[in-house]
């Protein structure tokens, strides 16, 4: 069986990637955000898993509006970094893990999740920015193979938060039944509160975000019980991306150990959050 060793929730704002790509690490607008990432990066650097599963959404780069899957999974050997209009980010392509992908696919479909299979997929900032948050200097390659798990969050109706949490739990079961002994890291991405369009553009809700950062650790069921409309009202129309953190959390144990959290406003128009959890049982007294 494979073992989930950690779960990382993180925003995936494109400007975070752009700031890193332009070396703005010490820029006064950005330095606090990156300082908040540092403890997580250090912890993760010593705990590279054999494979990672990255839960994300595409932003009209890898898929078009013609065909919008609610849940998709990549089964490719390799995922190219998308050109979002003005050249691709200068980061490595993503190496996949098709054997584990096909195992997860079969297990999830047998478990009643109606996955869409991607045999080819270009991944956009929603995917590569979290990888950069984890690994700022990947060199020629990301630290391990990564499997994309795509969630529709931009086209209504999104899956419910409860369904995302259930998908995470099914993902946990699927990983546990993998015949090989490998270690796995899970990334849930998106959020935190933000709204891009309309008179409410620039909306930030730090109260909700802090509640979310706490509850994702100790009471994910509470977050899973919120409706689409709750997320849109409390976290903004794009803050609904936070439902993807629930997939990550669902794949972990009921009890997890918090390694580090960080919260910063703004990354461009968005509240940026990070939460890192150790999935190994805490030492007991």
């Amino acid at each position, binding site marked *: 069986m494979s073992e989930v060793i950690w779960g990382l929730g993180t925003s995936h704002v494109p*400007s975070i990637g752009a700031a890193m790509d332009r070396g703005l690490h010490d820029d006064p*607008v950005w330095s606090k955000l990156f300082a908040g990432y540092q403890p997580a990066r250090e912890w993760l650097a010593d705990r590279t898993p054999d494979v990672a599963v990255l839960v994300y959404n595409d*932003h*009209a*780069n890898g898929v*078009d*509006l013609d065909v919008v899957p609610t849940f998709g999974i990549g089964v490719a050997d390799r995922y190219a970094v998308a*050109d*979002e*209009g*003005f050249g691709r980010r200068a980061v490595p392509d993503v190496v996949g893990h098709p054997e584990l992908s096909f195992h997860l696919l079969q297990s999830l479909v047998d478990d009643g999740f109606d996955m869409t299979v991607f045999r080819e997929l270009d991944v956009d900032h929603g995917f590569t920015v979290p990888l950069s948050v984890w690994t700022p200097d990947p060199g020629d390659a990301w630290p391990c193979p990564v499997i994309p798990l795509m969630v529709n969050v*931009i*086209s*209504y*109706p999104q899956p419910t938060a409860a369904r995302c949490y259930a998908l995470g739990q099914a993902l946990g079961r699927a990983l546990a039944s993998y015949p090989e002994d490998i270690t796995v890291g899970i990334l849930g991405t998106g959020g935190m*509160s933000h*709204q*891009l*369009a*309309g*008179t*409410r*553009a*620039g*909306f*930030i*809700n*730090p109260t909700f975000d802090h509640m979310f950062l706490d509850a994702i650790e100790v009471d994910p069921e509470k977050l899973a019980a919120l409706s*689409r*409309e709750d997320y*849109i*009202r409390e976290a*903004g*129309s*794009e803050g609904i991306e936070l439902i993807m953190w629930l997939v990550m959390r669902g794949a972990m144990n009921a009890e997890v150990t918090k390694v580090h959290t960080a919260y910063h*406003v*703004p990354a*461009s*128009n968005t*509240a940026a959050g990070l939460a890192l959890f150790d999935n190994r049982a805490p030492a007991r007294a």
Partner: protein
Amino acid sequence: MTSPQPAPTYVFDGPTSRRGHRMNKMFMSLTRAQAREEFLADESAYCDRFGLAEDQTTAVLRRDWQAMLDLGGSIFYVYKLAMMDGLSMQYLGGVFTGMTEADFKAAMLAGGRTDV
């Protein structure tokens, strides 16, 4: 279907996505350099080629970002036109809220708009 639009929020639901479909496809095409050249050479003809409604073409030609949203544009697609014009999401945020880009940026740096 029931529409869940909270008052000042755009939700890309069924009716919205139907209204905006051709316009959003046009925006999507602008991720290719060749398409951007063709668009810039004759914006109106390019919009016609994608079958935009007249009010949509007008909104695109005038860079009326608010109208594009009202006519079914998805912000992720509208943004592709803005990117082509060298405009940022923070510029758009200013337009939608009646601020200059500088004021919108300042509002975000001050912790964002927590009261809307």
